């Protein structure tokens, strides 16, 4: 049991479908429902949408990192044939207010800058024209005069800036957006009594999701009704999209948001507020539909989703028995020029900041600083992948300093199977886990002992091979409290993160499920089909899936924080329950049986124990749709066969007022063990993979094949983060990695030939079927695992890796320095 006792009791489980059942569909590797249309080029992405009379927008972007806008001359641009409008930020601000911001107090942001630009790439003017080609020609004709201001690029300098070096003087005299300390458990006492304190400075610079498709929107404004329709490839259009109505100055029922499939997101399309508010504003101003699609430069320089950009000073306290007891972190996070989500990324990290270990006290000092860079947003992990990096690097540091075994040290410090549900010092709950089983499976799959033997032989040949290990948490299903609980004043203290689903059975017995969240490369249609087929005992081929716009749909939060499968499962179990009840009522009348004697079997409803006494769902549905008078008069029995259900978070509690207990806010806790085997070419600093094992425990798996896809895809992104990717800004705030020739993502040549995926299933006691989220996958564990492998490979030289990405240049520099020290 954990040592935290003074928090509120754990709410009881509302799980309806228990894990461990004999299931027909759940757990199978069925081919994805989404694929046929995607494979044949019939997927309709945002740039595939063309509306009659539609115009195209292009954005002029600031070449300065920090400057006052002195003047903008649009005369020549506006005169170009084919140009309909050229607008500055001031023009747009006449009808459109600031963008939605989820920090409190907010940091004001506009879809096109007004008066001041705060990062290279920030929008300065917009052209709307008959084609994107002409719009870009017009951009070249706009003349902007800037008055430079001091450029803040180094976060350690930016915290000290005053005067003109402050990006948002209306908010306060410094660039510090939030500075706060959170203490959980007896930290000072634990550190005072520690037998050993291990200290590291760690650097995790910003990288980004880089989905192959950028953000875009197609907006129309119907002036008669005063209503906007916005087609958007956003993930949370349904949860937060309505806030755009505030920016557009209309009531929320005057915007209808239409989800469009997205070509990748990984968190980066969480909101897409800049693009959507801009397109909508332009549609209203021009009186015609407007399409605005970011090109790749737009996206790299001015998206709403650069990743975490942090400097950590970390300390780990251990007792005399080599048990980790306390963790202290001071973190400086460079948020760029705007503060969309506040420090939600750090709240997120607090859900699993102690990793899978029985550390009993935590001290976190967070400083969020604003600089002249693109804003941060969401990227696969939302900040907790960085916390994983930190704790695993500290574990490796302790192992190194104490001369211990990296596997056994972890095993000894794990939370044990019998400890669950386990409260960590911050107040979050880990619902279930079996970390020793995951570790053992990874060791077995890798043939760890075999690789250690090979390593010894390779060392004799002068080759540098290393085996890495990381044992990391993957929290899933966030609670809305994480968005505000770290603010000094809560602001909008929302507590709902629901997911709605509706089901219709048509008169011929076929089923349409309407989702209230979009597709971005996850598999919502496949998940919904499999779970509903299981619930109603029908053939998946009889189910089709649709996506509701906000006018017609239910509440829904959308994909994020690995929540969607768990939440849609809850919603489907609820909706299926309602429909099952109605099917039984109608069938009961048709079969002259009591509903309590009926069961679903193989597309039919029949009397239990009487194989011939049954009706097909088609027969029942036809009856329900069109034959009301054939059934007894009863105001509670209505024609039709449909159900709607909204599922709320299965397990969450409020934080305490003083925030010494953050409540249960991210309890469905998955776990992974990554073990890469790498070879380092010490002459060039290049790293290659000889093997890679990733064992994941996401509870009950709905479709092991799609989960493995997230593990491998996430691992590839984690390898990118570890070895290749960074948004580099120079001292003048110029983004040096503003195209794909300079921002380097791994191709298949750079990745392990075979990421061998293992599964362990420790079900959740709180979710339907015991499913846990797994979509963030490998990115949560790969970066520290690779650092660990590189250090293991270079152990003879004593090279330590404390900063990412470990590019060949950086690694060769560390090796050169180590070789010089030895010589």
């Amino acid at each position, binding site marked *: 049991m954990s040592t935290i006792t003074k928090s509120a009791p754990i709410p009881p489980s509302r799980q309806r479908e228990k894990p461990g059942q004999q299931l027909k569909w759940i757990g199978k590797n069925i081919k994805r429902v989404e694929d046929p249309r995607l494979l044949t080029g019939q997927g309709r992405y945002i740039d595939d949408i063309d509306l009659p009379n539609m115009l195209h927008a292009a954005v002029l972007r600031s070449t300065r990192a920090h400057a006052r806008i002195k003047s903008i001359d649009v005369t020549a641009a506006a005169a170009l044939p084919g140009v309909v409008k050229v607008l500055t930020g001031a023009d747009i601000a006449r009808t459109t207010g600031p963008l939605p911001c989820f920090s409190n107090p907010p940091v004001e942001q506009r879809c096109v800058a007004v008066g001041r630009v705060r990062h290279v790439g920030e929008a300065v003017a917009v052209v709307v024209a008959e084609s*994107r*080609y002409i719009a*870009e*020609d017009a951009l*070249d004709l706009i003349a902007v005069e800037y008055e430079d201001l001091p450029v803040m690029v180094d976060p350690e300098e930016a915290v000290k800036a005053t005067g003109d070096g402050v990006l948002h003087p209306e908010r306060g005299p410094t660039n510090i957006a939030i500075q706060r300390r959170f203490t959980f458990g007896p930290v000072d006492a634990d550190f005072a009594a520690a037998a050993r304190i291990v200290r590291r400075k760690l650097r995790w610079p910003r990288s980004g999701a880089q989905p192959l498709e950028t953000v875009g929107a197609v907006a129309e404004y119907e002036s008669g009704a005063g209503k906007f329709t916005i087609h958007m490839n956003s993930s949370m259009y349904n949860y937060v999209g309505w806030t755009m109505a505030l920016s557009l100055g209309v009531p929320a029922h005057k915007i209808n948001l239409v989800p469009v499939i997205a070509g990748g997101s990984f968190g980066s399309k969480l909101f897409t507020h800049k693009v959507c508010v801009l397109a909508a504003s332009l549609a209203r101003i021009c009186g015609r539909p407007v399409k605005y699609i970011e*090109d*790749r*430069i737009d996206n790299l320089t001015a998206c709403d989703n650069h990743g975490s950009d942090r400097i950590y000073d970390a300390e780990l306290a251990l007792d005399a028995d080599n048990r980790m007891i306390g963790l202290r972190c001071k973190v400086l996070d460079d948020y760029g020029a705007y503060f969309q989500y506040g420090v939600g990324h750090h709240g997120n990290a607090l859900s699993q900041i102690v990793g899978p270990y029985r550390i009993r006290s935590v001290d976190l000092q967070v400083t969020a600083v604003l600089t002249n860079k693109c804003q941060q947003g969401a990227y696969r992990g939302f900040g907790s992948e960085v916390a994983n990096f930190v704790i695993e690097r500290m574990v490796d540091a302790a192992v190194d300093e104490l001369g211990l075994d990296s596997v056994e040290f972890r095993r000894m410090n794990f939370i044990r199977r019998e400890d669950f549900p386990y409260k960590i010092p911050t107040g979050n709950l880990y619902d279930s886990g079996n970390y020793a089983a995951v570790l053992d499976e990874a060791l077995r799959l890798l043939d760890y002992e075999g690789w250690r033997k090979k390593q010894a032989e390779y060392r004799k040949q002068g080759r540098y091979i290393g085996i890495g290990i990381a044992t990391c948490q993957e929290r899933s299903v966030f609670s809305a409290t994480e968005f505000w609980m770290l603010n000094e004043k809560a602001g909008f203290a929302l507590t709902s993160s629901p997911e709605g689903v509706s089901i219709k059975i048509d008169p011929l017995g076929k089923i349409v499920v309407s989702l209230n969240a979009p597709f971005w490369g996850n598999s919502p249609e496949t998940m919904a089909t499999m779970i509903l087929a299981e619930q109603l005992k029908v053939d998946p081929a009889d189910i089709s899936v649709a996506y509701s716009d906000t006018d017609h749909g239910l509440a829904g939060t959308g994909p994020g924080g690995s929540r969607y499968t768990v939440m849609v499962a809850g919603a489907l179990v609820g909706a299926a329950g309602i429909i099952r009840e109605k099917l039984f009522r109608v069938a009961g009348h048709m079969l002259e049986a009591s509903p309590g004697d009926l069961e679903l079997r193989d597309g039919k409803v029949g009397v239990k124990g009487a194989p011939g006494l049954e009706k097909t769902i088609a027969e029942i549905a036809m009856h329900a749709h069109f034959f009301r008078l054939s059934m007894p008069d009863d105001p509670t029995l209505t024609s039709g066969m449909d159900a709607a259900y909204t599922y709320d978070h299965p397990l969450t509690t409020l934080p305490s007022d003083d925030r010494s207990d953050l409540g249960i806010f991210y309890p469905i806790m998955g776990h992974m063990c990554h073990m890469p085997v790498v070879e380092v070419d010490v*002459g*060039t*600093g*290049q790293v290659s993979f000889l093997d890679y094992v990733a064992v994941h425990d996401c509870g009950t798996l709905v479709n092991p094949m799609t989960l493995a896809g997230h593990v491998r895809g996430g691992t590839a992104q984690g390898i990118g983060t570890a070895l*290749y990717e960074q948004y*580099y800004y120079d001292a003048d705030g110029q983004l*040096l*990695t503003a*195209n794909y020739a*300079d921002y*380097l993502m*791994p*191709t298949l*040549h*750079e990745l392990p030939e075979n990421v061998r995926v293992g599964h362990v299933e420790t079900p959740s006691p709180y979710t339907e079927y015991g499913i846990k989220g797994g979509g963030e996958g490998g990115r949560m564990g790969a970066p520290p695992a690779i650092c660990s492998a590189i250090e293991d490979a270079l152990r003879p030289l004593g090279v330590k890796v404390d900063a990412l990405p470990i*590019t*060949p*240049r950086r690694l*060769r*520099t560390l090796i*050169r320095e180590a070789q010089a020290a030895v010589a």
Partner: protein
Amino acid sequence: MKPARFEYERATDLASALAVLARYGREAKVLAGGQSLIPLLNLRLASAERLIDIGRLDELRYIRLDGNELRIGALTTHNAVLRSTEVAEHCPIMVEAYRLVSHHSVRNRGTIGGNLCHNDPASEMPLVVNLLGATLIARSASGERAISGETFFKGDFETALEPSELLVEIRIPIPVKGHGWSFQEVSQRKGDFALVAAGAMLAIDGGVCRDVRLGFRNVGETIFRLPAVEARLEGQAPSAAVFSAAATAAMNAVAPPSDLHADEAYRRDLVKVLAERVLAAAAARAHH
């Protein structure tokens, strides 16, 4: 990112292409495979008032053996050179280098001539051409001239071609039979431009190195081969120690640039380690 406007003409034969170039000179840019030019046009980093599309001049696509020379037409695509049995037999270093050039679909369209004329400082073929001691044939409406590999490449993205000239052929003297070769590079990802590339060719005659060629790419403007280092190796018996000394000399002979992905110190390290590796590999391949 859409290109700005330009006039466009497609040449139907070499003579008319040269006539157009004679008329428009610097106003015109030549479009061959487009794999280097079009990205620059899309990004609006380059512009052209007029594009002359020479992509249909099949008369410039060939690979022929002519006595002691291998002649490659300038519009031969990268993949055609990579797959050529003549090139594999007579200039294997070119095939080895081509495996490091970009990616398959880019090599389907990109041409060897286009690549050489673009002269990106990190591209591989200019170095290969210099290691092979090739001559580049340029033609204009007023005639033809042969330009040595050393003088053809003047600086980053700059060649000795006049605006009215087209590169039409690469002439390679076939290296002596039994020579050894190696081309290696360090890039962050396979297919990227080289942080540093290195190539070596040598023969081993009577137990010593002869006709040594050693060169690098992306180690400073206009540097390809290092004649002083080559001269040191001439007549020496191949050994790890000898190659190591030569590699150190090479490392000290260059003043490489620093950029986002590699600083000067790292490039020097790469010169040293690649020099050792290409010399050792070339020696291993050479017939003694």
